[in-house]
């Protein structure tokens, strides 16, 4: 199968039903998306498919074929942070950090669709991503800050 990840094209030889997460992590060695639950409960594996946040553990590689896959590595880099990542750094959101690639990918997708979100919309959109460390108060702040940054940009 041919996959387009972060604007690069890859050939992978995997079963049609292999979850995209494992094609990314173990075949393409793209480790930003994390394995947390395997059943779309935690959101640690969140990537964008044509700009929309999806759970890479619960869509198959076949379903992702021919579509634009973006992982946290493709969103921004330490030298060129995406506005959401900038906000995450400024608000020092992370603790263990394991859920944060998924949180950031969810937030980026959400803000692209809701540039001026209400508190309630933020709460709803971000509740599908689990954080065991309890960084939620800072996630809320960072999402709002990112929204302001994106509006100003």
């Amino acid at each position, binding site marked *: 199968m041919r996959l387009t990840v972060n604007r690069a094209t890859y050939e992978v030889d*995997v*079963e049609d039903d*292999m*979850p995209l*997460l*494992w094609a990314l*992590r*173990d*075949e393409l*060695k793209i*480790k*930003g*998306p*994390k*394995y*947390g*639950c*395997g*059943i779309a*409960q*935690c959101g*640690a594996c969140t990537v964008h498919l044509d700009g929309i946040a999806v759970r890479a553990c619960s869509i198959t590689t076949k379903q992702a074929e021919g579509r634009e896959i973006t*992982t*946290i*590595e493709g969103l*921004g*880099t*330490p030298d060129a*942070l995406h506005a959401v*990542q900038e906000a*995450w*750094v400024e608000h*020092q*959101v*992370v*603790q*263990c*950090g*394991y*859920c*944060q*690639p998924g949180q*950031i990918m969810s937030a980026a997708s959400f803000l692209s669709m809701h540039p001026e979100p209400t508190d309630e919309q933020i*709460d*709803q959109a*971000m*509740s599908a*991503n*689990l*954080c*065991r*460390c*309890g*960084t*939620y*108060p*800072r*996630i*809320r702040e960072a999402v709002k800050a990112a929204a302001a940054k994106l509006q100003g940009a």
Partner: protein
Amino acid sequence: MASIGKIARRTFLVGSVAIAGGVAFGYYAVKKPHKNPLLDDLANGEAAFNPWVKISSEGVTLITPHTDLGQGAYSMQAALIAEELDIEFGQFDVDPGPPAAAYYNTAIGPEIAPFRSTDESFQANAAREFFGAVGKLTGIQGTGGSSSVPDSFEKLRLAGAVARETLKKAAAEQTGVAIEDLKTANGAVILPDGSELKYTELAATAAEIKPVQNVTLRDPSQWRLVGKPMQRMDIVPKSTGTLTFGIDLEFENMHHATVKVNPRRGPMLSYDASAAEAMRGVKRVLPVTNGVAVIADNTWRAFKAAEAITCDWGPAPYPAEQEDHWNAVANSFTAEHLDNEWRHDGDADAALEAADSVVEAEYRAPYVAHQPLEPIGAVIMVTDARVDIWVGNQFPRFAQQQIADVTGHDVDDIHIYGQYVGGSFGHRLEFENVTLAAEIGNQMRGEIIKLTFSREEDFAQDFPRQITMSRGKGVVGNGKVDTFDLSIASVSASESQFGRIGLSSPGPDGQIAAGAWNMPYAIPNYRMTAYKTHELAPTSSWRSVGASTAGFFADSFLDELIHAAGADPVEERLRLMDHDVSRKVLEAAAEMSNWGSPLGPNRGRGVAFVESFGVPVAEVIEVTMTDAGIKIDKVFIAADVGKIVDPVNFDNQVKGGVVWGLGHAMNCEITYSDGMAQQSNYHAHEGMRLHQCPEIIVRGLENAEKIRGVGEPPVPPAAPALANAIFAATGKRIREMPFNKHIQFV
């Protein structure tokens, strides 16, 4: 100020050695004649030199042996060294270093002494000194018990100071300028003319000279870093997906493995892997203790193959059904199960006897899982000569021994490379992933293997928090609490945890009573009795350990008594308090929350105070009873850790502790049926979701004399404060966790 003469000689000797291309500053765990026979059997291997600071011409490396579980331990340790070394974040690397006795935890030992943290008597301090010596003797390198900051606070600054002064001496020798005329900043020695000699340029000279020993720690007024907001060094990597966790490690020709182990923790009687062996990508199926391992070319293929293996599991070595676990605990409030009477002020029996009416209540706290988001695993390679393992564990020297027991290697040939881990909450105090990785690696010598547990396997093999119950009897009169008589029956998580690695814990288990016997209240009749239930399902330390349950029982029951007395929950706690630092904490939370001000209809406010790990913490919670259930609106929390190293990380840890405490109190439990945990993934053991998260307002106080850690202490008051708030809003007392068995949450 602490000087090396006062502290270091008692605990460690700082020295230096030449290393390739430079110098290392650290300490020797020296075998030396000593009056105390306990200290006489340090093994030869423990006389090794262990560095804190390594400087070569290539760069500066700071050694940070406390495991970073997400609590920011690497940055905290680096900041303490850098404070005295005069080097900035960005100018050094960190490395957890090899497991070594010299990195023994100086702070865990003294906390085992059975004295209230507020007790500064001769006996209390003598006991702390004794247990501290045991810690030194046994060389326990551990991360836990909120001890990383107290363990590191002086010794790492001293290590930085010794390195700095020695580098100045090297610069003086190299340039002929007098030491008094030299300054240090930004990783360099500054000469009077303003020119700089970088530490890396001085490394070779420093290696040749005797290290300066007579250093004095700087006065806090001179601190550049400590106490000021910092940016943790892992913030950017963790916000960009560029930080490598253990699960992300990649090596050439690496195999991907998973395990399937008896969920009843009994033996595996037989298995059939024929279907699995025929599946794509499956390389091997190997027997391991009580189960099987699958080795494949992709983690998912290993998971799928493991599902396809049929296993005949033997029975559980504990009651198969949850009800029998509860019965065992309920039947433990008897003389034969007495673990210790931790406190008896006044005469509780006489007061209860004489009372017209006695307030009674019973509480329960269930098994709860750890389940940090990164599943457990390890990368390992076993050869005939050595074992190399990449894993984050909170007891790396115990892990070494566990591996040695499996592979037969000498402990010195087992090389552990500590990794950043995706959360722990006590999970990585255990060794299942380490020993199973060793069993797999040992059967595939010469191959490199990454073991990853599926989430379901991680749930099944987790060692949950203790199951425990409490019974309270109390008397009130004249608007006051007069008698507080609390009994707790619990399995011993400490005994279970340390028993698995062959360590026995003599004496009573202080964690059964933690947070309940040590309340800083002068109640006329105050008795706290602990009963130990024999081992049921195996359990382990869970963030805040005993206080997470005993604190819930004790503060909830006190709140019931205060209400029965018709007193104000804050006023009465303050009236009873006999510890000034604690009083200021409670006063702060009350003031922050505007305690006493009217709330709207269907709203309620609850307060709780629990001291754990020496840290007094008060929380006030506001809730609203909505049509959809209880909504937690706000949490006001005050805590006193003596000195806050980094206010940003402090705030984050405190908020995280509140979320942890509330989330699990709301909706988490592990129950057993047919000997197996019934909860297999986050849908059944969810914790808090963002939409449920209250606004959390934090205040850190610095009145306490001793510096303390804050990873755990915010947890215990969260559950009772919530229960007390729900009572205030609804009139309903919730005496059992998880609360959602009794009330709905939004």
